[in-house]
């Protein structure tokens, strides 16, 4: 196991009465692509802001490269590339000014790479940032986040504003490239298909808490959708055990299990039920089961 590039321990954050982060602990190893997924308002951006030192921990700790980003912003931020969700680039700058300005902050800036990216992204160096389309703006933000070849690239909802072709080609290629060079990418998204495509590890954040944190393969192989028929009719599926969500009524239930096949068979036999099918699940289904499934188990079909 690599040394963690980011170590978060029992991080709590409230905004007034609203709990944004409720004791989050997370360790991200060096190298690879880490996907942080969660619905709107789950706390993803808040968590990323803590890693950048834009928010200070009310309790708990954040260490990035072993540094406190609030106490040592230069040490931490000079090794990070960041693309924010709202792409708040200065409208009054031209692209070449934006590149030149950003370059001054990073000793490792690679001007040739920056120029390659600029050409690939089809950005006119004399265009003002305010005249860029949403997609172009995201590309400009990506350019200045990437061109100093950061040890850690943090992308907050990188896909919003990019059309599907650009999303697939640019984002996928960049994320893989960075990861292949031994660098780390941390990106948040609620578009789960792209997370599934590129992430090596994921964490599901729901209502300010980490619901799951594991390698992508383990997440996929560890969750199954089980169609089963109970011998007796029930209005509520018996809670607990390997079942983390599902729906159904009376005899027929479609349940989500977090277990290997043998454990599933054992659990089903204890219920005196028949297995109709066991299917692998998409990350989308796993996410829904993880974040909404418990209510369905308790409440029956909704």
């Amino acid at each position, binding site marked *: 196991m690599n040394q963690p590039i980011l170590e978060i321990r029992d991080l709590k954050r409230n905004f007034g009465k609203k709990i944004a982060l409720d004791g989050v602990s997370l360790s991200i190893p060096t190298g690879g692509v880490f996907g942080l997924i969660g619905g709107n308002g789950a706390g993803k951006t808040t968590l990323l*802001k803590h890693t*950048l*030192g*834009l*928010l*200070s921990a009310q309790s708990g700790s954040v260490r990035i490269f072993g540094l406190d980003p*609030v106490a040592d*912003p*230069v040490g*931490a*931020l*000079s090794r*990070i590339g*960041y693309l*924010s969700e*709202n792409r*708040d*680039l*200065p409208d*009054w700058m*031209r692209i*070449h*000014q934006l*590149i*030149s*300005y950003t*370059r*001054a*902050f*990073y000793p490792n800036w690679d001007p040739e790479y920056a120029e390659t990216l600029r050409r690939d992204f089809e950005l006119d*160096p*004399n265009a003002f940032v305010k005249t860029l389309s949403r997609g172009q703006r995201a590309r400009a933000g990506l350019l200045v986040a990437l061109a100093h070849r950061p040890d850690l690239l943090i992308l907050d909802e990188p896909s919003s504003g990019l059309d599907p072709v650009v999303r697939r080609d640019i984002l996928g290629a960049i994320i893989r490239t960075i990861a292949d060079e031994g660098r780390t990418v941390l990106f948040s998204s609620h578009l789960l298909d792209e997370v599934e495509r590129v992430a090596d590890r994921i964490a599901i954040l729901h209502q300010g808490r980490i619901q799951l944190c594991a390698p992508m393969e383990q997440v996929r192989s560890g969750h199954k959708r089980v169609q089963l028929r109970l011998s007796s009719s029930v209005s509520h599926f018996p809670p607990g055990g390997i079942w983390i969500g599902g729906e159904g009524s009376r005899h027929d239930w479609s349940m989500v299990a977090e277990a290997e096949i043998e454990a599933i068979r054992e659990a089903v036999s204890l219920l005196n039920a028949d297995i109709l099918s066991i299917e692998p699940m998409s990350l989308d289904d796993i996410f829904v089961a993880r974040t909404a499934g418990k209510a369905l188990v308790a409440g029956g079909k909704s």
Partner: protein
Amino acid sequence: MTRPIQSPSVMAISRVLFVDMIRRSWFVLIIGFVGAFSLPFLILGVLKAKGALLVDDPAMILIHFTFAQMMGMCFGASVLHAAGAPSRLYVLPLSNRAIMVIQMVPATLMVIGQTALSIWILNLIFGLNWPLLGNALAFGMIFANFQSMMNLFQKSLLMLPAMILTLTLESFWVKSRHGPIFSLPTQYWTTVTLMDWLVFAFAMTLSYWIGMYAIYRSRCGNEIQTSLIVYLSNLIQELFGKRTKVFRNAGQAQSWFEWNLKGYVFPVIVGMVVPLTPLFWLFSERKITALLEVLRVEGWLLSVAGMVSGLILGNMGLSDASIGMGQFLGTKPLATVSWSRILLRTAFQSLSLGVLIWAIIFSLVLWGGKLAGESYPAELFPWWYFPAIVLAAWAAMTFALCVSLTGRTIHMKILGGAYCGWLIVFTTIGNITSKWIAELFYFCALSGFGIALFLLTIGIWGVAFRRNMVVLRHAIVAGIVLTGLIGLVGWQFSNGLPLPTNNHGITPYFLLVSGLLSMVVFPFAAAPLALAWNRTR
């Protein structure tokens, strides 16, 4: 049977938007109203307290003329801010005509109402007999013109000459209602004639149609029409903007950023206002000494421009409304202390350039006066005048910068509220209590304010020192500078500075000025703290 959809009337929408405007901007409007009202109230209050308020004195006409303009401009600015850009209404099912009416009518009526109300209150309190209607209508008209021009020319370079031309013409006309155009005001505008009403009607109609055209054009997404000035501006941008600047380090890049975005504000304000002084001087008796006197007052007013510029300079947000630091800047690997020094250096450069503009114009006038054989009273410009206006402007600018730098608008609101409350108490205490209590109050208030500022500075330095944002060497230098300045003030006070006299002597004034002087070194500790607080929330 399907009932046809009834669209709400313009009146109903206008009413909703008006209520919304009040709800959103009540604080700005109150500040505008109190701000507009406070200086006339303060000065008239002082005159009354000194027994120098002579209602029938011809000099009161000039005071009335000046105050009416100041009140109209001050409140008009806050109404302009509250009304906002018409573009926010473009997505509503409203015709261009309706948008124009909604945008112009309530705001204009507010300006007319405020001017009339303020004059009426001043009349009531100070027993004046200033006429209400003429100036109130005139400032409503000027406001409507100004608003339409802003919509038409937006932020283009054309806006400035257009505004100057319009305001100059209107100023000539308003001045003509107070006597000959090129002299001091000689009469009150007591009667609004039929011709005056026709001028109002013409100007308002013109504003309406100009505004309509501006809305029509920008609602279609059309750029403003290119003029020679815009063409030249584009040409300059093409020639010089394309050059890629290479920065040696992050500090240099950030200095460039701060200057290009905000640093020029102070010199631009000074460069716009001070050169107009000789123009407006044409309206008066045209004596060089009078012009010098105005420039002398403008020297003190540099601190007001400095305060406005400081608020802008400390804004690390994406817009005027959002002053919290954005993520683009917040994630730049630049140490907070270095960054705050860059900001202070930008403030210093900005201040230096603005003061230089003022000083050049002042010197030219002085030189012109000497050539014309007119001498000025030397006591108006004692040795400490120039350092004092520079230090005052620096302190005002950097204090405002630090307040804005916290990234929290609540601090501006608290300061604005405290200022208004303080002003009201300060100006009314003499009228509502006995002289002895009032003098005790002034003694405690002036001394207390000075001591509070001094303690605030020491406290901020202590916190910054504890957080390693300043070191002992900085503290020693700041202490020496402050001690030197206070020593100079003490020496000057003991050598007879002309001050208002009371039973308590010069002590409260000395404490007040010492406290104010501590604001000169205040920002060196406060700026990094404020920036850190803004950067990490």
